[in-house]
Every structure is written in structure tokens, then in C-alpha cells.
């Protein structure tokens, strides 16, 4: 397709941030000065390098077990990136499939899917996620799975309402007359139509997945205690929040900026989609 999309500053900044975060996650072993698990009991609770008593061996200081905070921050980005992308992808796949089916076929298919969604949404999200983690056992894969199982309903609802609108468009009928099967109508006519919404939803979902992961990590239900995760870092540092604020501030700043970037990505993409769809009709000489 020959459509040039004009992205605004939001999209540029936010996607730049996520690119950087992904690169850090990939090259964490190279960039980190220490192993995130290595305990140095001789240097516990060291302040950040530029404060009195700190040194550049531990740029962001150490925690109560003498682990390098900087290295843990870098390794924690791996969890964030994996959770954000996999959870968004997973809930998008489940939610979009069911939403498209519900919106296009209507009737009992729609009623039953939407009933499941309503019941699902009536259940408190955090409790559901914790129940799942308790049942499945804490690990990165299970955290992603729990977030997907909690959040797919949002995708399903929004995609269904978009599909309902699109399915009424005469071009769907025109495709049927041109010989399209039901599956082909779903894939060729409806899916491309809901794609802009889907992209926006995905970027917002990245933000809420990060929040969900840090909540789970905070209550100790995310990855194991030895693994570095921003949520766990906040939880562990909270007890020393007044005596050693450098334990909580860096992971909090990192988490907030990651969520902000994903929200900005969503807003920016929505603007881009709007300007693309409302672009002026160009006229060319007709023969």
C-alpha cells in the first residue's frame, strides 16, 4: 500500500525509548558491571556513586545484600520487555480472534462470547492474576500467561464493537458477492479494518502489563527472588525508603518512564491513524 503515515513526536520518542530498552535488555550481560545475583556482603547499602561514601564500582549503590543496583536495573529490563511484548501479543491474539468472531457472526456466538467476557471482567483482575500464579507457580512464563488471561477481555470488547461497525459496511457485502468465504471476509476485509485500533490497544496493553508485573512482583508472586525485576527491587527497597532512597527511586523512575512511553506510543499512533484516515481526497484527471 502506498500510504505514507505521518508520525508525530510522541511516536518517535516513545518508540525510541522502547528500542533503547530492548537493546539494554538484549545486551544486559555486556553492559552490567556485575552479575545481578552476586552478593558483596562487605559493601551492603552503599549509596550512589556521587554521594559521600559511594564509589563508581557500584554506580547506583548496593542493596541490603550488597547486590549491584545498576546491574539489577539493567537485568530487570529483560523482564519488563518480555512481559510487555508477550502479554500484549498474547491478549491481542485471543481478544481479537474472539472479538472478530463475535462482531461478525452475531447471534448465539456473540452472546456466548460476550457472556464469558462479562463474567470474566466481573472477577477482580488482581485477585484473578494472583490465583493463577498461586496455581501455576511463580515464573516469568506464568506471569505472562496470567496477565494475558486477565487482559484479553478488554481487546475482545473493543474489537467486537469495531467489527460490528465494519460488518455493516457495504464493502463486506460486496466481498461476499465477489465470492469471498466467511473466513476470507474476516481476514481480508475486517481484520485490516480493526488493525489501527488493535495497534493502539497493544501499546496501551504494554503499559498495563508492566503495571501488572510490578504489582505481582511487589507481593512476591512474579519471577523468583533471585531474578532481578523492577517490581521486586521496589518491594525490597521500600523498607529502607528513608535511609537509602537510592534503592527505590531508580526502579520507580524506570517503571514510570516505561509506562509513560507505552501510553505516549498509543496516543501518538491514534493521532497518526486519524490523520491517515481523514486525508484529503486527491483528484487526478480522468480519462
Amino acid at each position, binding site marked *: 500500500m502506498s500510504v505514507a503515515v505521518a508520525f508525530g513526536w510522541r511516536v518517535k520518542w516513545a518508540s525510541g525509548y522502547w528500542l533503547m530498552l530492548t537493546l539494554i535488555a538484549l545486551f544486559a550481560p555486556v553492559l552490567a558491571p556485575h552479575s545481578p545475583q552476586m552478593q558483596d556482603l562487605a559493601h551492603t547499602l552503599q549509596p550512589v556513586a556521587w554521594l559521600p561514601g559511594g564509589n563508581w564500582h557500584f554506580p547506583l549503590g548496593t542493596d541490603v545484600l550488597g547486590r549491584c543496583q545498576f546491574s539489577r536495573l539493567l537485568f530487570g529490563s529483560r523482564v519488563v520487555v518480555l512481559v510487555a511484548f508477550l502479554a500484549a501479543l498474547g491478549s491481542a491474539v485471543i481478544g481479537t480472534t474472539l472479538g472478530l468472531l463475535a462482531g461478525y457472526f452475531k447471534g448465539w456466538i456473540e452472546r456466548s462470547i460476550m457472556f464469558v467476557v462479562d463474567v470474566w471482567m466481573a472477577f477482580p483482575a488482581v485477585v484473578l492474576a494472583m490465583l493463577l500464579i498461586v496455581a501455576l507457580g511463580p515464573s516469568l512464563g506464568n506471569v505472562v500467561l496470567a496477565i494475558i488471561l486477565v487482559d484479553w477481555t478488554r481487546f475482545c470488547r473493543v474489537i467486537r464493537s469495531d467489527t460490528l461497525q465494519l460488518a455493516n459496511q457495504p464493502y463486506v*457485502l460486496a466481498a461476499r458477492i465477489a465470492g469471498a468465504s466467511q473466513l476470507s471476509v474476516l481476514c481480508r476485509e475486517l481484520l485490516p479494518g480493526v488493525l489501527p485500533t488493535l495497534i493502539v490497544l497493544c501499546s496501551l496493553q504494554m503499559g498495563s502489563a508492566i503495571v501488572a508485573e510490578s504489582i505481582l512482583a511487589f507481593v512476591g508472586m512474579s519471577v523468583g527472588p533471585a531474578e532481578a525485576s523492577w517490581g521486586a527491587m521496589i518491594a525490597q527497597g521500600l523498607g529502607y525508603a528513608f535511609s537509602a532512597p537510592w534503592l527505590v527511586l531508580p526502579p520507580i523512575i524506570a517503571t514510570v518512564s516505561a509506562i509513560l512511553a507505552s501510553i505516549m506510543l498509543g496516543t501518538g499512533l491514534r493521532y497518526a491513524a486519524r490523520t491517515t484516515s481523514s486525508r484529503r481526497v486527491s483528484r487526478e484527471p480522468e480519462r
Partner: protein
Amino acid sequence: MIAAKAHGAPGRVLEIRGLSVDTEHAQVLQGIDFSLEQGRILGIVGESGAGKSLLSKVLGRALPEGFRVSAGSLSFAGQDLLVCPASAHRDLLGKRICFVPQDAQQALNPVLSISQQFNEHFERLGLAPGSWSAMAQDALRSVQLAQPERVLGQYPHQLSGGMCQRVLLAMAFASQPDLIVCDEATTALDPATQLKIVSLLRDLQRDRGTAVLFITHDLDLAAHLCDQLLVLYAGTMVEFGSTEQILSAPGHPYTRALLNARPALTGDWQALQPLCGQMPSMESLPSLEGCRFAPRCGQAGPTCQQPPSLQQQADGRWLRCCGGQWANAVTASPASMDARYALGLLGSAPPFLRVENLGQSDRVGRWPNRRLEPRLQGIDFSIAPGEFIGLVGPSGSGKSSLARILMGLKAPDTGRLWLNGEPLGVDRASWERRRQAVQLTFQNSSTTLNPRRTLSELLTQSLDHQAVLRSERKARAEALAQAVGLPLELFSRLPAQLSGGQRQRLNIGRALCNLPQLLIADEIVSGLDVSVQAQILNLLLALRREHKIALLLISHDLGVVRYLCGRVMVMDQGRIVESGDTAKVFSAPRHPVTRQLLRAARYEVEHA
């Protein structure tokens, strides 16, 4: 009844001198110059993109962002509307200048009842609250709405489009304005309602001596209603004169082309001479240095390189043209055009599609009161290869339902269909057979095309589901594009990047991809400009010559039906009430519905 109000220049309500509107890149309105006297109707005519609505937006100070008035004056009753303070301008709107917009249902507030909206209006006019309800009823009575008390209590969604338009007219006339601006006020209505609204406007205007600025793309309608006509092309005023002058002897080649592009309702059959090309877009205006019409003009000469000036002719009309003075007009000879598009193949072969006693009913109401309401009853007809049949009737008569049943999108309750001698059922094999033989094109060309697929993909959409080589598909797309007159450069365009005419060509091309025997065209040219409409009509005739396809044309425009179709069927309330040779039916209609349709098409006003 005539509201005599103090005027600067007596009798002259609106005077526009040298008005120009600029954007950053181009002059989109150029030297508009006219005046409108009290009690007269001035029609502003032009195709889409001519700048008609821009003119009404200048009056209402509602120009879109980036547009500004760069020159000229606009005086209303002696006051220059362009320089007067905003509060003075606001005071005029709704009181002395009233606007009647195109979509009445959207112009009315959906959460307020009609009486509340009247009250708002009267409050603005500064009338005593005690008289409001009586005045509202009087106003509604003056637009011939039955039961004004009931209408006042209703909300806009409970009224039909025509009724909403009458309410707006009533509101406009209730303030006894000096000027009413109608911007395509009747375009969205069906012809019968349109005629009623227009004659109502005419009567009220005559009674009260109001001046009306009637903006429309429909030259016939304007000719019927207006005292004077102003023809706009690409933001320039090309001709301005009395209606009789312009209709009897159009001075500008564009006016002449517009008149020639309309299929006539009477007289001998004659091939239409479409204007080639289309209106230049706003972006391409700066590159048109000379006469803006020259690239499409059949008689353009070297003098057309210079921008022509507006000059008054001997007979009093104003004309902006410097090419050849319409003496050496070069036109395609009508005889050769007639031969090319002649109505051959008038159903000589045996019919391939037979419809017998078709009927369909809709379930209406909820369970205890549920009843069946017949939508179609006893439809019988047949179509032969190459036969063009017109299907006409008032709105709601079941034309579109019949089209959908023929296409197989709805199942009939009774009756049978035979395609090529075999009965058509509702099973999968029948659907495939039907799809190969019958294709449907819809009214609104923009919503029937997937906005995310390119022109070449859409043209060959029915090959999506067949094992076809990519090269073969490309060749098919090229052949189809050539058949429907779409240039190959547009192949990677999306529907939003095409013009209305191009989209309709694409729709027709897509339907022809598998070479169907029958094309059902549901209002295929309504909403297109006349010059584009003429191109599409001639395209259909050329396609019949080449491929021998049959056409079932659903249209409310009897001129179009007469131009294309050898046979016509008139529907009313789900039945075919009259059918036969188009020429015979139109010259000697037997059923009252047919007579009524013909009268509406000829703008014969029935006074209640």
C-alpha cells in the same frame, strides 16, 4: 405580508463585488460579482468542487481554517458583512439572513423537541413568550405540515427527512428574513419530496417577497425554480444571467456542456456528449494560469492562455470566456456518437433469467401484535441477454429489496427464479452459480470499496478466491481497467484517493471481473455530477456493445432510465404496476403512479 424593512439601496438585498477567497496556495473563489434583488431567487449552479458552498460560508463567516477573504465587498442591505463587527453580523443571522442546510435531520438538535427548538429560535428573535406556541403552529401550517400540534411535540428522529426540511423552512420563514440561503437543501430527498419542498419554497418566497440564494448541483432543479442563474466553475463565475437566457442560449462552453450532459426526458434519443476530465482540485488551481476551464474546453484557443475577464454581453448577461465566442465550436458529431451507443440488441435472444410470482414479507412488531407485512408481491418478469431494464418507483416501493433477492442476499418467501433454464435455490451451489451470472453494484460508491485495498486488488477481487497466477490477475486487472476507462497509473491508489466517478467505474469494473450475464445497478449514478454521470452512462452502453451484458437499472432519475433502458418496470408498494417499452410507458403512462413519477420528473407542480 411583505415585510418592508429599511434598506440601504431599495430592492437590492445582497450585493457582492469582486469577492475572492484565498488559501495559502490558491485563489479558490475568484472575482465573484453579482447582486440579488428583493423577491428574487438566484440559483448558484456548479459541480462538486466549484466553490458553491464556500460562498454560503463567506456569508455566514464560517470559512474553514486556512481560508480567508482576500478582496471584494459583500453588502447585505447596505451593510458590508465583511467588515462589520462580529456582534452585528451575529445579529443578522437567523433574523434577517437564514440558512437552510442540506441534511435537515442533522441540523436539528436530536435531544430537543420541535417546539423547544422553535422556542429557542423565537427567544433569539426577541418575541414575547406568550405568542410562541401559536406562532410555531402557524409556521408549521404555512409549510403544509398536517397536525402541527403533534409535530411540535415530536423529536427530529420521529420525522422523515422531508418533514425535517419543512420544519427548517418554517423556522427560516418564521423570522421574516430578507434573505434565505439554501445550500443543497433538497439534494438528499427523493424527487417527489424534493419537488414538494421546492414548490413550497417558491410559494412562501412569493408571498413574503424574500430573496433566496439557492445553491445546487442540479441544473434542472435550478432552472425550474430560479429567476437568475450563476454558473460556477473551479471557483470562478463563468456565467450569470436570467434563467431563460442561460437555458435557451448558454454562452459559456461549460454551461453548454452541463446542459448537453443531461439525458432528456423528451425528444429523440441522442447520445450524450460527456465533458472529458473533471473539475480541477484545489491543489491544482495555481497551475491553471489562463482560463480555468480551458483544459476541458472543446473550443479553447491560444487566447485562452490569458485569464478572461467578466464581461457583460449585449443581452445583459455576464460571461467570462475569451475563446472563439462559441462560433467555431468543435464537438463530436452527434450522428457518429448515436451510432456508437445505439440501442441495439433489444432482448432479441430468449431470456436467461426468469422470475415467477416472487413475494417477500417482513415481520413487523413484537410477539402478541406480530404480523407479516408484504414487501414484494407477485413479481413476474424475465431478462434477455443484452437487455437494459429500468426499475423505477417511489421510495419504499421495494426496488432495492427486489435487487437483493435477485442477487441472493435475501431469500424470497414465495415464487421461483430460473437462471439459464435451471431453478435457483438457496444452497451453496446455487449461490456460486448465481454469483457467476449476476452481479450487484451499490449506490454509495465509497462505502462499497474496502478502504484499505488498492484499486488493482479491488478490480479483481473475485479472483481472490480462485487459484490464479499473479501475472494472469494483473492482465485481467489491466483489461478491466481499460474496459471501464481507469488509467493504469491509478493501480496502487486506495479508494479514498480516487474521485467519485473513478470509484463508480471501479465498482462497475469489479462487478464485470467474471463477466456476469446481468448487472444490477442500484442507483448507480445518483450523487455523481452530471458530466461524470454522462461518462458512466456511455460506459454502460459501450460495455453492452462489447460484452452483451444485461442491466437492471434502479433509478429515480427517469431521464437516465429513458437514456439507457429499452424496457421499464414501475413498482409501487411491492408490486410491478406497469411495464413495457420505455418510450411507450413514458409517452402514454397508464397507471397513476407512473403518471405521478413523470410529473415529478417534469417539475409539474401539484398545488394542494
